């Protein structure tokens, strides 16, 4: 997995540090779908002592998008003269009505996959008679790219472009997870590319409020194992510091230009997380001055609702770190990637899909 000698030495050293530091049952969490996949793919859990539980939190933006947002996107895609543009991974996730964008498209709704929000603006520019709506899903890594597209649209006089906002903020959600009485998280492996935007300092309030160590990690198995080692050593020593284990891409202040753009276009508001509920101040709403680019205002749509998941689905418990996917009664039986029930099995970066593909 890591090829050359030095990486192997670092892997062995990190695993040794982890084994030495874990002296009692311990639960830590990663909150990044890309980490979820890397951990599964490299079988990193198999290297941990049995007392260490590495949980997958709400790190998949597609999974936490409320079904009501997907329903609204489907309704917009059926509207004459309107095209809904989206990243491809939203297509197969069922909304609250259990419909998917993919099925709606097959039945004639106007849905187009784009690689970037910029492509959606380009489409709007080329088809001025069409209303082009982009589904604004994502954490702090993605929201600045969509903000940039909104700014380009406005500056370029592209009036037929708007965004259906469903953005989420990671650090305040981490703090909220720790406050729940049934969740006992003792440390966080923090997402590398979210951190490239928000910076190291953004986790200080989490570490302080929840008294848990926060270690930012890249996506290499070595990065991840060293991050986990740093977390469990802090727990052993009773510390709760923020550590940057991914200095290749993450700086103390993050990306100030991206943060300024987010601040210019959005304001922090409450957000509905699928399967979890409304978490105060974990979302981004479009500011009044940018209302013309907010599809919800433009088309008079109601605010998102924290809908129920399908009957028997435990995605909410999985994403809050209360259980791991194999503990869901539907896992591998009624719920598989070929016939998924919940969003964490649909999305390629969902915890259930990762466990199904790679095992625990």
């Amino acid at each position, binding site marked *: 997995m890591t090829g050359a000698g030095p990486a192997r030495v670092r892997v062995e050293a990190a695993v040794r540090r982890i084994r030495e530091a874990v002296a009692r049952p311990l639960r830590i969490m990663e909150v990044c779908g890309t980490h979820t996949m890397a951990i599964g793919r490299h079988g990193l859990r198999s290297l941990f002592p049995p007392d260490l539980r590495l949980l997958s939190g709400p790190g998949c933006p597609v999974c936490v998008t409320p079904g009501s947002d997907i329903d609204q996107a489907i309704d917009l895609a059926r509207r004459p003269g309107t095209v809904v543009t989206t990243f491809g991974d939203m297509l197969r996730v069922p909304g609250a009505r259990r419909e998917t964008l993919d099925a709606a498209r097959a039945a004639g709704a106007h849905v187009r996959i784009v690689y970037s*929000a910029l492509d959606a603006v380009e489409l709007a520019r080329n088809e001025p008679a069409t209303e082009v709506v982009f589904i604004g899903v994502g954490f702090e890594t993605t929201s600045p790219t969509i903000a940039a597209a909104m700014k380009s649209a406005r500056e370029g006089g592209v009036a037929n472009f708007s965004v259906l906002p469903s953005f989420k903020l990671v650090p305040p959600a981490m703090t909220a997870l720790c406050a729940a009485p049934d969740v006992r998280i003792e440390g966080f492996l923090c997402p590398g590319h979210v951190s490239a935007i928000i910076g190291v300092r953004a986790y200080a309030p989490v570490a302080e409020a929840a008294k848990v160590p926060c270690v930012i990690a890249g996506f290499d198995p070595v990065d991840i194992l060293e991050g986990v080692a740093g977390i469990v050593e802090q727990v052993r020593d009773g510390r709760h510091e923020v550590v940057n284990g991914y200095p290749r891409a993450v700086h103390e202040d993050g990306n100030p230009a991206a943060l300024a753009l987010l601040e210019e276009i959005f304001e922090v508001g409450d957000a509905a997380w699928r399967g979890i509920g409304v978490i105060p101040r974990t979302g981004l709403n479009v500011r009044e001055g940018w209302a013309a680019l907010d599809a919800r205002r433009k088309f008079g749509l109601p605010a998102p609702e924290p809908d129920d998941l399908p009957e028997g689905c435990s995605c909410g418990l999985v994403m809050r770190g209360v259980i791991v996917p194999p503990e869901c009664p539907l896992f591998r039986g009624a719920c598989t990637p070929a016939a998924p029930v919940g969003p964490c099995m649909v999305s390629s970066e969902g915890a259930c899909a990762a466990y199904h593909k790679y095992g625990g």
Partner: protein
Amino acid sequence: MCLAIPGRIARIEGDVGFAEFGGAERRVGLMLVPGARVGDWVLVHAGYAIQTLDEEEALESLRLFEELLADEPGAAGAP
């Protein structure tokens, strides 16, 4: 969803750049990296450069990314 790929800026037109990814050129929004110049390495997510990288960092990230792509074509297609 938060996958990001290092690329090198080949040319710039306004706030849109064209970055090279292993020989292929692709349009990349530069609004989030106002200081970026031709020849710089940037980390690209969802069609926008989200951070500048020094060359050594970029090559290291690239090596890891290629490793990730090697047996994960499906997952790597996510933005």
